[in-house]
């Protein structure tokens, strides 16, 4: 029953899905690396991205992939403002306070969505919904393919931004050594604002990209939140490439789990892997010894 084609198919599905997980996780790892804060509200930004593209599609008929132009800047501003007015004041606070402040943000945004949008499940259904490409026996949906291509493009773009531009270098400098960066004249407040904004924009972009594939409801972010944690830890704190590879690995693992188990047990397997990684490779699969 389990043929090579079947496994190959699962691998492809896993890689396509994993590249989208990676985009969301890269946002989280950027915030974690630069600000040393684990943002528990990250999943809600994915949720907001989903809702933005849903409403643009439902009200104005804008294609979800074009609505990226709107959702990414919107989420950047929302994230930046949240950083500026709340999280900024807890950067030097104990970890438990940082945890709770981001949880407070999560509760606020998620329940605001519940109040405004109602708990109904919604879906974006575009005309090319069922379109596929078949290569031999393999079947690849157009939507996952486009979604994955966009997220890889965004990831590469962000990578180049971090490597080549002055602002990107400043971000990496703060991640490497906060005090040193400040002595070199880098404005930490500005960098935190940018880092949180970009991180939120990544989550929002991931949300918009997956809007034709997922049901949309206020708690949809939880799944992405936990998966992003798993990926970030696997990749190592603030490790950009690590997070990307981690995303692909998680996508493939999740996909291959279908062979052995059904239903939500696969999440339990992913989380168990996560705890094992934490025990044996606390600095990530690709991490160096120092933090």
């Amino acid at each position, binding site marked *: 029953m389990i043929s090579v084609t079947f496994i190959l198919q699962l691998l492809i599905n896993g890689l396509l899905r994993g590249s989208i997980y990676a985009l969301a996780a890269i946002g989280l790892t950027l915030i974690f690396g630069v600000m040393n804060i684990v943002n528990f509200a990250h999943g809600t930004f994915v949720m907001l991205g989903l809702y933005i593209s849903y409403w643009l599609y439902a009200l104005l008929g804008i294609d979800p992939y074009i609505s990226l132009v709107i959702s990414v800047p919107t989420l950047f501003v929302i994230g930046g403002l949240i950083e500026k007015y709340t999280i900024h004041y807890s950067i030097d606070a104990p*970890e438990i306070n940082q945890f709770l402040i981001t*949880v407070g943000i999560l509760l606020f945004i998620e329940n605001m969505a519940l109040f405004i949008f109602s708990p109904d499940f919604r879906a974006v259904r575009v005309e090319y919904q069922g379109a596929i490409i078949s290569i031999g026996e393999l079947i690849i949906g157009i939507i996952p393919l486009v979604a994955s291509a966009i997220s890889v493009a965004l990831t590469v773009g962000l990578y180049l931004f971090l490597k080549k531009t002055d602002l990107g270098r400043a971000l990496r400098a703060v991640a490497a050594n906060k005090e040193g960066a400040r002595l070199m004249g880098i404005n930490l407040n500005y960098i935190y604002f940018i880092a949180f904004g970009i991180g939120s924009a990544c989550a929002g972009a991931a949300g918009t990209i997956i809007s034709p594939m997922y049901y949309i409801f206020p708690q949809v972010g939880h799944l992405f939140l936990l998966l992003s944690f798993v990926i970030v*830890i696997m990749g190592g704190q603030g490790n950009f490439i690590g997070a990307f590879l981690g995303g692909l690995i998680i996508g493939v693992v999740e996909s291959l789990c279908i062979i052995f188990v059904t239903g939500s047990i696969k*999440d339990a397997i992913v*989380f168990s892997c996560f*705890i094992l990684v934490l025990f*044996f490779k*606390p600095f990530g699969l690709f991490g160096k010894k120092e933090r």
Partner: protein
Amino acid sequence: MKHHGVNHPNLLRNYVLIFLIGLFLVLPFFLNPYFLHIMIMTFLFAYLSRSWDLIGGYAGQFFLGPVAMFGIGGYTSTLLYVHFNLYPWIGMVIGGILGMAIGISLCYLSFRFGLTGIYFGLATLTFPEILRIVVLSLEIFGGVNGVLIPLRKSSLLHFQFDGKIPYYYISFFMMLLSIYIMYRIEKSKSGYYYIAIREDEEAAESLGIDTFKYKLIATGIGCFLLSIGGTFHAQYLMFVSPDSSFGIAVTLEIIIRSIVGGVGTLLGPVIGSFILTPLSDISRGILGGYRGVHLMLFGVIIILIILFLPQGVGKWFEKLYDNLRTLFEEKISFLVKKDEFIKYK
């Protein structure tokens, strides 16, 4: 001059304590079922939060998995009662030991592999999520719908009562017990060890404190108490379900009370529960028609408290108490002076 006053520093504290205990003992007879329910939940969450704070506050470990033990306690006693007709009290102890064993194993592994801070937090946050999914997926644990506790008869042995008043007293004594245990730990030698570990673990270790051992002891006691709280919760609601027992929301409810009241203080978690539990229940009652609004409010309250009172409300109460005590001592010393004056005459 302090020595004019009554030479008993704990006198006022004992008065306040006796007054409060007396008040809470007679209170249930004046409350309707709705407020009784609020009081029971207040006591229960004070108890749970007090138990978590032993690990998360005193021992200073970023422990985000109290709900694992809470759920294990509830599910163990319930399943044993439903399938083997074992009295919940026995199930409670078994659940407590099981929760303690699992909590100690999890923390032992985490400490052994050197997980600290947020890494320990994420490991302990994920663990109950695994349990939740397992319970949700397997029919032997009741699946998605959870397990209903069959209504037998109202008796202490079956941990089932007609009214809410017995639950009130049980939860009240559980809360007192958790405070008493913490008080004893605080006053013992290990209390100082915990303060040292919390302030600077490496320094504590270099002074010869076996930090590993003391962290595990705190975890063990805390997890045992949390599991017992789970059994009480199950018996009170008469059912267990994956979300009400293992949901991340319960973890937040427990931790937030401790932060609001003051982490690592004896009465902080209790004060936190006395503020937040009625607030969240009453706001749910008032705003229940608007779905989600009371949780939005809850989120805003958390953010405001963390930003403006990061030490917790408990510190503020402490100041109030100190002022009261100074006032009290001045009054007494005044009386004593007058007495002396009369004697001289």
